[in-house]
């Protein structure tokens, strides 16, 4: 069944979108990531204009994160204070990201920026995750215990200290704000929630306990992506609500299926698969930049 998307102005198969939403939903349920970093490139592949894909994906992440955070609130695994501090940075970052996005759109380099950001971040995250999970698998075979990470680093020597009760931390507000800014910029440019950067940053940079990390990350992603959605909707008119709804329906169903599959698999195995997948998307986008394209010319909206 073909659906004509009102904002993207392309006709796509509705079942394809439901299916894509479903597959990414399964993966996000299995691995505990938002899935935006996979969905946005997939939307590029099926011919959705990049600007629409990025803006609409931000809207879809609001839905999936909201669904996820409700479960975490029930289990009291959300550090709301930390979330709000991250948020301050997130809003600054999102506003900066939109400015950058619009500037590059005007000079015709937005596709490059989005693709380059993807290649760099997917490459780094995928690579690190692949190495880390392989090492964990080898260690568990060797019977050695995983060493505990050190809790004191440069982060603890900065001013403006604050107490974060749910995380059991007493640290400066500066690092969380900086992390928030970085994720906010990425959310605006890449149309992702930034969970795949936020989660490692919270564990390794801020030293937060793992059990509150996912819930807190989701909590602040909702506000950042909601803000991004509003900015894209009012300045670029690129949020396609019909596209968002189709992806969202597939996504929430897939997430439930994925969660059940995830329970039956080993954590390290899951992470290796996720890493391989992330690297595959990265390789595809990277080759597009490196190999000579079959069509050198592209058309954009004209006029100044």
């Amino acid at each position, binding site marked *: 069944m073909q659906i004509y998307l*009102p904002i993207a102005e392309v006709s796509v198969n509705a079942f394809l979108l439901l299916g894509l939403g479903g597959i990414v939903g399964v993966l996000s349920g299995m691995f505990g990531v938002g899935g935006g970093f996979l969905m946005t490139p997939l939307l590029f592949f099926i011919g959705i204009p990049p600007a629409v894909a990025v803006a609409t994906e931000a809207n879809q992440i609001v*839905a999936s994160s909201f669904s996820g955070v409700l479960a975490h609130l029930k289990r009291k695994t959300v550090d709301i204070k930390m979330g709000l501090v991250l948020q301050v940075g997130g809003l600054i970052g999102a506003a900066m990201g939109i400015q950058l996005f619009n500037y590059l759109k005007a000079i015709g380099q937005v596709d490059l920026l989005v693709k380059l950001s993807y290649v760099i971040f997917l490459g780094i995250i995928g690579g690190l995750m692949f190495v880390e999970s392989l090492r964990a698998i080898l260690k568990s075979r060797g019977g050695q215990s995983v060493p505990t990470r050190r809790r004191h680093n440069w982060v603890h020597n900065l001013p403006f200290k604050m107490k974060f009760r749910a995380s059991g931390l007493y640290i400066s507000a500066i690092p969380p704000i900086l992390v928030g800014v970085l994720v906010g910029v990425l959310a605006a440019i890449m149309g992702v929630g930034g969970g795949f950067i936020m989660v490692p940053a919270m564990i390794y940079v801020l030293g937060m306990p793992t059990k509150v990390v996912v819930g807190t990350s989701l909590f602040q992603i909702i506000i950042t992506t909601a803000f991004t959605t509003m900015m894209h909707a009012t300045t670029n008119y690129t*949020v396609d609500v019909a596209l968002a709804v189709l992806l969202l329906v597939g996504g929430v169903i897939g997430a439930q299926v994925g969660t059940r599959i995830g329970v039956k698999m080993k954590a390290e195995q899951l992470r290796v698969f996720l890493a391989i997948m992330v690297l595959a998307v990265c390789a595809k986008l990277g080759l597009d930049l490196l190999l000579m394209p079959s069509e050198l010319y592209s058309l954009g909206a004209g006029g100044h």
Partner: protein
Amino acid sequence: MKRFFSLLAALATFALPASAQQEEIVAGLSQNAVQITATFVGSEILIFGAVKRDAPAPIGDLGVTVVVEGPSKPITVRRKAKRMGIWVNADSVEVEAAPSFYAIATSAPFDEIISPELNRARDISIPESIRILESEETTDTENFAEAVIRIRSKAGLYMINEGAVNMNEDTLFNTRIELPANLTEGDYRARIYLTRGGELVAEHSASIDVSKVGLERWLYNLAHQQAFLYGLMSLAIAIAAGWGASAFFRVFLRS
């Protein structure tokens, strides 16, 4: 010699009104409005007509050319080049106007029924329909124009179907123009040219209104005119869906 022919062509153009009185086009369209709904999968327009004559037909092969064109919009054409090892958009050319859709159907090979002079005077062929601005960045603007035609042809937006107009007894003609699913809205125009030996005998034009309707129309208008409200609506839908899914699966899992 060449000058003599162009003089002859100019004379033929001057002689136009006289011959136009002798032969006229009477034409109709199967639909003069196309509605883009949520399930729009493309459409087809049947264009038909007859040649009305007051006197016996003059000597010479009669040709019919039908053009359906979408609204013209300015576009920016960018060309990639390898910079620092990766392919990036390097130079660009502003196209002042290029039709969003352009279909030509003819009763015989294009060059046989449309003279180059007539083609230029009435902007009939696809390259004639594109107006390019001079660019300081590049000198090879014609490559950019070719790229527009190549990309849009591949997307099924530009097409030329020679021989697609059926003619009966040099009087009745009809053709079908396919409108693809990735159509954009606007005022479309159908033009019909009746030619004899490459020179214009009569012409006719009609407009076709292509617009989004229903939900598509409403969403598009809301997104552009009430952007803030539209953004809030998108968020409300997302939050409701997220909450709904969570609630539904909680109940579903419990049972």
